[in-house]
């Protein structure tokens, strides 16, 4: 199966790889995994006082599509409010990266990761 150019680009030059200090109050973490392929994805967001995502980082152990999906999402969420980031759909990710049907679950993983990070932020900040 051939990867699209966009997947290869994100895979070879992943954006925003790394970690924030998870004890920082402005940082929230989303952890998700896909049992079928064993992929593990960590997506962190740094949210400012106005509720805008200032920065995002990820660390993904998985296939090229999983890495590209999480890399893309960290680019997309920057500058968005939590509510806007909540609207990101896996179908948008899959379309942007031209993922084949067998790799759709990678985009689902990335959508679930950003949702998990937002949920973690809301829980940390009482609602």
């Amino acid at each position, binding site marked *: 199966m051939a990867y699209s150019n966009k997947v290869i680009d994100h895979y070879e030059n992943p954006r925003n790889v790394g970690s924030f200090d998870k004890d920082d109050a402005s940082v929230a*973490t989303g*952890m*998700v*995994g*896909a*049992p*079928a*392929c*064993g992929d*593990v994805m*960590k997506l962190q967001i740094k949210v400012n006082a106005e509720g805008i995502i200032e920065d995002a980082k990820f*660390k993904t*152990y998985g296939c090229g599509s999983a890495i590209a999906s999480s890399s893309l999402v960290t680019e997309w969420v920057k500058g968005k409010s939590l509510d806007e980031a909540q609207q990101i759909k896996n179908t948008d990710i899959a379309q942007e990266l031209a993922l084949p049907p067998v790799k*759709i*679950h990678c985009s*689902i*993983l990335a959508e*679930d*990761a950003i949702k*998990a990070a937002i949920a973690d932020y809301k829980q940390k900040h009482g609602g």
Partner: protein
Amino acid sequence: MNYFKLFNLPAKFDLDLTELGSRYLKLQKQFHPDQHSSGSERDKLLAVQQTANINDAYHSLKQPLLRAEHLLALRGLKISHEQRSFTDPLFLMQQMELREQLAEIEQSADPDAVIADIERQLQQQKKQLLQQLASALDTETAEQDQLAADLIRKLKFFFKLQQELELIEQQLQD
């Protein structure tokens, strides 16, 4: 299709693999298309179909995770093709740490020792999870079946780690 019934074995996770093996060989012989070469076209086709079923059944029952999935499917809980993300943060954090250890093997002063150490951790965790899985499946309640499904999901991550570790081991040898 009930794979246990096909081999006339009790539908339990704790399966006698030697018995499974000998019943597999017997059935395979019985339905081997060569045995039906003098039969009608329909008989031949059925024998081919039955041979395929026997092979599928054998491969599913032989492997603990596939066997557990099949048991759950027979109880109405199908998880083999699910695409739902797994979200247990503590478990995933541990997976992430193990992946990081794997990634650092190459740079370590004594890669063989690190590999042996990780191997030990993986075996221990797998053994523990498989024991929990066996007892959850034996209880046969809806709640324990859900727990069993989660244990299968966790075990899949460990089997994947095992594969990755073997890959690294091979690369280091080359």
